[in-house]
């Protein structure tokens, strides 16, 4: 027997086998799954857990193995009169003329520590709360239900400070339509910032805006938890309280935090899980904690 030849063949065979195994590992790591056989078990366990929670997964889980850093933001502090004027000019359309914008129409009508400041703006009102959120009451006038989407899209395109908002989702009810946009920064959804159009049947609609001023990412990057882990963490928080079946219709990575009345703060990356029943959950992509 030629042992030397046999060893050469075996070396070649094991070399090929190792290459194949490494390729498999690379594939699984890049898709955020824990392992080939482990993945099957994991998927099976996840499916069972989802069924027990009366949930179904209607989207594929995004890729894992990502790295991210905290995002540093500060509140957007615009001159409110200029914001109101930009809205007014847009809503006037062709007839809008900057010269017609009357400063006298814009004045404070209420100032309250809890409610914030309420400005009168012709027939409309603007409420500004301490943390920086704005509500334009009765801003959408004379729009039909099917025109709201177009108007919102145009507004997000035309008004300078709304250009970094991207359409997110729509919630339709018999008497109401809500169009939600999120703020975008460096390709990441900044779920904490939002633009919301609320159309009401037979009444004037409102616009809600909360915009953040991103200052950049923090220096230290770290790996985010895989989507499967985030889903487990979500199920731990969700399981006990749901009675009616729902579906996970959106699963994505972005940035989210509460609205703070602060000078500047860091926002953690989150896995956002949106359900068909309208509920939204944010799982901190560093800690796996449910963000309230």
């Amino acid at each position, binding site marked *: 027997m030629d*042992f*030397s030849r046999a*060893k*050469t063949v*075996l*070396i070649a065979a*094991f*070399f090929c*086998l*190792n290459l194949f*195994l*490494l390729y*498999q*590992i690379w594939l*699984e*790591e890049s898709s955020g799954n*824990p*392992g*080939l*056989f*482990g*993945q099957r078990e*994991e998927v099976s366990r996840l499916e069972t857990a989802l069924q027990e929670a009366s949930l179904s997964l209607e989207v594929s889980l995004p890729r894992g193995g990502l790295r991210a850093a*905290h995002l540093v933001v500060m509140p957007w502090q615009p001159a409110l009169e200029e914001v109101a004027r930009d809205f007014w000019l847009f809503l006037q359309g062709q007839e809008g003329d900057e010269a017609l914008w009357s400063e006298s129409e814009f004045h404070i009508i209420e100032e309250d520590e809890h409610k914030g400041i309420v400005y009168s703006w012709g027939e409309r009102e603007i409420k500004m709360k301490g943390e920086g959120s704005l509500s334009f009451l009765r801003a959408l006038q004379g729009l039909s239900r099917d025109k709201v989407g177009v108007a919102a899209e145009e507004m997000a395109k035309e008004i300078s400070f709304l250009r970094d908002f991207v359409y997110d989702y729509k919630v339709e009810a018999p008497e109401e339509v809500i169009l939600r946009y999120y703020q975008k920064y460096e390709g990441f959804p900044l779920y904490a910032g939002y633009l919301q159009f609320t159309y009401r049947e037979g009444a004037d609609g409102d616009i809600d805006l909360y915009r953040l001023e991103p200052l950049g990412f923090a220096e*230290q990057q*770290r*790996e985010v*938890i*895989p989507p499967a*882990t985030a889903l487990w963490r979500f199920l731990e928080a969700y399981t006990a309280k749901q009675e009616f079946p729902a579906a996970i219709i959106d699963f994505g990575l972005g940035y989210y*935090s509460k609205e*703070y*009345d*602060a*000078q*500047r*703060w*860091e*926002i*953690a990356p989150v896995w956002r899980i949106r359900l068909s029943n309208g509920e939204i959950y944010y799982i*901190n992509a*560093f*800690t*796996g*904690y*449910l*963000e*309230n």
Partner: protein
Amino acid sequence: MIERFKTILLVGLIGLSIYLTYLIWFGSPYLEEGMLPRFEYAYFTPLPPPELLLPPAKAILERAGAQEIYYFRRGTRELEAVWKDSFRFLSRELPVALGERLGETELAKITETALFTLQFVFNPPLPESFLWGRRAFPGELSSVYLLKGAEEHYVLLVGEDKVLYRLQAEEENFLEGALAPFLDQQNLRAEKLPEQFVLQIVSFPDGSGETAVSLHLTAEEAPQEAEEAAADAGEGTTEGSGEEGEEETPGGEEAAAAAEPGAEEESREPGWAGDPPLELNGAEEPSSGTEAPVLEQWQITVPQPLYIPGKLEAREISLVQETLPRKDLVHAFFLDPAMARRIEERDGAIYYTDGKKGLRLYAGGALEYTAPGLEVFPNRLSYASALLQAAENQCLYGGWPAGTFLERREKTSAGYRFFWRSYFYGLPLLRTDSSCEMLVNDKGMPYYRRNFYLYAGEARGVFLPFAPYTHALFQVIALHRPLFAGEEATLLAVEPVYRLLRNGPGAGLIAVPAWKVHYAETGPVYLHWYTLKPL
């Protein structure tokens, strides 16, 4: 040579294939599992030894049938020394001593006939297991007595039960030995207020034709003692009057004015002398034989034993708010500091949170930590374990500053809430809130607040004696006269303390020595230690 290389390569490749197969089969460890070992405890200060986790609030030594009383205040070297010795002694002797539950009559007989009684008072109570060094003792002790009888020595543990231990013969001399260094220290001598006494304001004519006032404290239930006390007081005045002419104290004016509207200035003995009379207008009091008209006579009831410490001197001190290194604090509170996001609040505070717990570092140096997820109902952690956990947390989350003592504990369904207070020169620093507060339960520490003031290394002024406590007692009556119904009062506390004051805007903090006088009718009132002006 080549064959040898091939063999090694083949073995290596086989090994690698086995390892890769394992990785694929079982997967990589989860990120969270991989992070756990990064957590390292970094204590700001070492954990205090067991005997100093909860030292006594005070110790009282009574000798010769309570004729001699020594008072050891918390925060003094004397109390620490006596307690350390006693703790070691008790830890050694209790396990071999014979314990028995006696009836009240038998206990009273032993305590009343004791030649020496050293009482350690614990507030909050001391877990009994601390003394025994074993967790099998769940009891809580409010007092520990060391008694020397005519023939035997005893230890009396007072908690829910009273258990008396008879000590071995060879340990009989411990008590005298441990206390010997302190028995000649006059500053440790103290006075126990009687359960009822009369505070007399006596008028007598002075040389200039005006009226002066004297305060007398007389035990109501013992007329002959009262006479002796009055006579002693008269002697004290005579002795003191020679010195008094040399020193005038502006603060006494307030007391005098309060006591007698017509009085203009006061001169008094500067040192504490047990029961000295207050003299006004620099007048000399009549000799003890002279009967002076009594202006006012207040019946004071003392519902619980009160001890007045001996000769005390103090001075103001400057304080600064404790500031801890921010980076180290964040490291201490969070598993991985990179997980905590930072929020700069408008008031200058910085808030760190990882979504489950939050750490707020105030601009001044205070900190507040909350972890609502750790709240649990009901708590199952024992008092002794909670206390140990709290001490460890204190050392881990900022350290245990010198002169800091656990002052209060609250047992709630959510756990044990502990409060710490700072002491300077043996006097507690009284402020509107406690120095530190912590909630501990079997899940961890859901709440922690820390705001210590530290000695700035700058003393203000010179050491001055505390004004006689009798004057402080009457000053409060005079200041709050409408609150009393008739000339009667219930005295709940009278003690020397430090009172925290802000020395003008932006000018820092000072701690002013003060008499804390607490009548049931008035609530606590703080008086400048020397001038008796209200603080």
